[in-house]
């Protein structure tokens, strides 16, 4: 875990997937798993998800919301949003450069 559909491809960083999922709004664990599976084709295992969530929370990138349910929702913090944007911009540059060079050869 996480499982990725492309054989041989490195699965994306679970933390980044979680941040990207929460960018659309607060979600609890199961909703994150389903959302990530729908937009990235990666099924995060429960151990992987709850390995990343405490780290992200400790780093102040996500925060828990009050809940009467055992399924506590999380939301992105300002720092989490900034980090996600910075990582995605870097990835976008890399993707653009890489695909451009592949097309030129």
């Amino acid at each position, binding site marked *: 875990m996480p499982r990725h559909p492309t054989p041989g491809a490195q699965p994306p960083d679970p933390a980044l997937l979680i941040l990207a999922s929460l960018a659309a709004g607060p979600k609890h664990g199961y909703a994150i798993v389903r959302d990530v599976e729908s937009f990235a084709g990666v099924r995060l295992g429960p*151990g*992987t998800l709850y*390995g990343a969530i*405490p780290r992200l*929370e*400790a780093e102040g990138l996500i925060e828990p919301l009050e809940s009467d349910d055992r399924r506590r929702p999380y939301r992105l913090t300002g720092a989490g949003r900034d980090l996600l944007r910075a990582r995605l911009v870097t990835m976008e540059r890399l993707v653009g450069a890489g695909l451009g060079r592949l097309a030129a050869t």
Partner: protein
Amino acid sequence: MRPRTSPPVLSRLLVGLYPRAWRARYGDELAALLEEAPPSPGVVADVVRGALAARATPLSLPGGPDMTGHSRVQALASLLAVALVLPSLAFLSAATVRLMQPREYQPARAAWVIFDFFGALPRELAAVVLLAAPALALVLGLAVAWRRLADDPESRTDLAALGAAARRMSRHPALVAAILAALASAAVLIFAADHLIAG
């Protein structure tokens, strides 16, 4: 509010693999997630891996004590204390066991080998192994325990519960005597069985 249901046995077992402080914060959430879909072998492996990682690198939980650095230092100090005290413990055990049987029987024969090994050490080295190392282990052990109790309220609660249990037991001397008698009997039976098997 949704009614709380008892998690299935497998979910509870899997959540139980995580450290207690981790479970107190995230255990219910993980159990709820595991209950959303029946755990497959892949999910079980993923959770076991996550639990091992959580035990290897404790996180500082928001609002909780900073356990990251302290826990690693405490774990290393504990391991060092055990390593320091093991040789002298082996020596004392061997010195005791070698007197319990004739030398040709096991475990007395092995105990004599260990005893003779330590007896052949130079005086200065023996003093380091048998006196200085246990003394350092004692200091390390007390320091780790003191630090842990100072940092971790749960450990203080556990210690208080242990003290309360000991006080309750002391009010029932017959129960204490029965437990000690059972333990002593088990030790004697094991020793006798070993003696008979060894021949």
